[in-house]
């Protein structure tokens, strides 16, 4: 498997996304915002469509759209007097509707679009990997630096706000990190499955962890394992890599659920 360059590049991208997606998703899941990644994914779809229409790199336009969508969800939720799920629905549907209109205008209902919807990790180039690795490293470093306030705010957001912790800035940071993760993950698992890697490893880890820090570490480990195992299975069984990765993550969740059930007996 490693003798082919496309698999080496795919595994490289899988390692970065396998670590980054659950690391960002951890803080979304703890705030009960598991579907935010999905909402941002739909906005990213409109970004891809805009890129195809304007003949600009769809990853770049998706990144811009995703960041704007992520920040919009957060601002609507925190300042707009809109309930979190309604803010999400508003951005979610607007994103997908805009995407459909733009795709139709670009006449791009074709294979190019499907690569972004379902992932195309086996076509990752060296340049793609360099972008994914660089932005992924920046994302992971940001989380490492801000782990304590991010974790503290999930324990008691209102208490932290009263004590003067800049909760608004932290929430916008998480939304922006989620957007970057979505844009980078498009090539690996596709827009339609992008949120799964942000949520499933975290849900699995939360069931078997013994502390918040261990839950965070286990989330990343399960995400990494899912990405590598899913890619390997896809290679040998000739399956779509995005679907294989997410199915492995789902299996990981079931295993964790059974383990926690057995431990509780």
């Amino acid at each position, binding site marked *: 498997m490693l003798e082919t360059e496309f698999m080496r590049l795919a595994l490289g991208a899988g390692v970065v996304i396998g670590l980054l997606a659950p690391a960002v998703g951890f803080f979304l899941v703890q705030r009960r915002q598991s579907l935010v990644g999905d909402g941002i994914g739909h906005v990213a779809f409109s970004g891809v469509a805009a890129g195809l229409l304007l003949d600009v790199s769809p990853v770049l336009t998706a990144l811009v759209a995703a960041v704007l969508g992520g920040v919009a969800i957060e601002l609507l939720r925190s300042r707009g007097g809109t309930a979190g799920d309604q803010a999400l629905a508003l951005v979610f549907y607007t994103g997908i509707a805009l995407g459909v209109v733009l795709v139709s205008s670009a006449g791009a209902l074709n294979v190019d679009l499907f690569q972004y919807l379902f992932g195309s990790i086996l076509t990752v180039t060296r340049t793609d990997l360099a972008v994914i690795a660089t932005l992924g490293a920046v994302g992971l470093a940001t989380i490492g630096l801000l782990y304590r306030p991010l974790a503290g705010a999930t324990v008691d957001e209102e208490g932290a706000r009263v004590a003067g912790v800049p909760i608004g800035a932290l929430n916008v940071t998480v939304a922006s990190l989620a957007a970057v993760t979505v844009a980078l993950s498009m090539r690996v698992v596709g827009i339609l499955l992008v949120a799964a890697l942000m949520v499933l490893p975290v849900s699995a880890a939360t069931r078997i962890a013994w502390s918040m820090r261990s*839950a*965070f570490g286990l989330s990343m480990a399960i995400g990494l394992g899912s990405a590598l195992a899913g890619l390997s299975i896809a290679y040998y069984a000739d399956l779509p890599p995005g679907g294989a990765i997410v199915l492995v993550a789902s299996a990981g969740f079931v295993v964790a659920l059974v383990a926690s059930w057995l431990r509780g007996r």
Partner: protein
Amino acid sequence: MPLAVELDRLSFGYRLGQHVLEDVNLRIGQGEFVAIAGPNGGGKTTLLRIALGLERPSEGKALLFGEPAHRFSRRRTLGYLAQRSELGGDAPATVREVVSAGRLAAGGLLGPLRRRDRELVSEAIERVGLEDRADTPVRTLSGGMQQRAFIAKALAAEPALLVLDEPTTGVDAESQESLAALLDRLHSDLGVTVLYVSHEFGAVEGFVERLVLVRRSVLFDGPPGDLPGLWHDPSHVHARD
């Protein structure tokens, strides 16, 4: 006595013309242990949010330690315990992890906690008697113990003002008594100003120096012993409607 909280002719409404609070005057001195009670929907939590500077009054003024509450410059000296339903995520945060969150504002946001911060976290855990459970996930503890962990989190900030919003909701009667006794001890030992907000005041009545009954305005403000007997039944406050 220098004032910790000063609310002067304060009114507030979430919608125009509908006052949740009307002409509220309240002065709480530094070092006092005060219970604010009243029916659900009577404006207690709103009053608390204005006192802490999270909302701005439509009329009147709110001061914290002499400064406008919404621009209070020493926020790190405020310890706040939100209602239980607003606390915690899904991850199994241990007692030590929860209490460490109390050092966020005072200990700096970036990087790991310093040694002095870790010592303060351990001291706070010992003060509430949870040193044997420091590495236990909070969600596996009883309701009373969980509240102790969150009180320790507030204490870790070395607060000048400790505010607790409905701390006994969902906690059994025995734990309520023990929680009230713990707060009384912390108040005596640390000299911290304690503001205890609840729709019922039974558990703390024996410990607080002042009881403030709120339903849109202040209906009673004085020692619990002076409270008219009828009002010891919180339903009476509703019945007046």
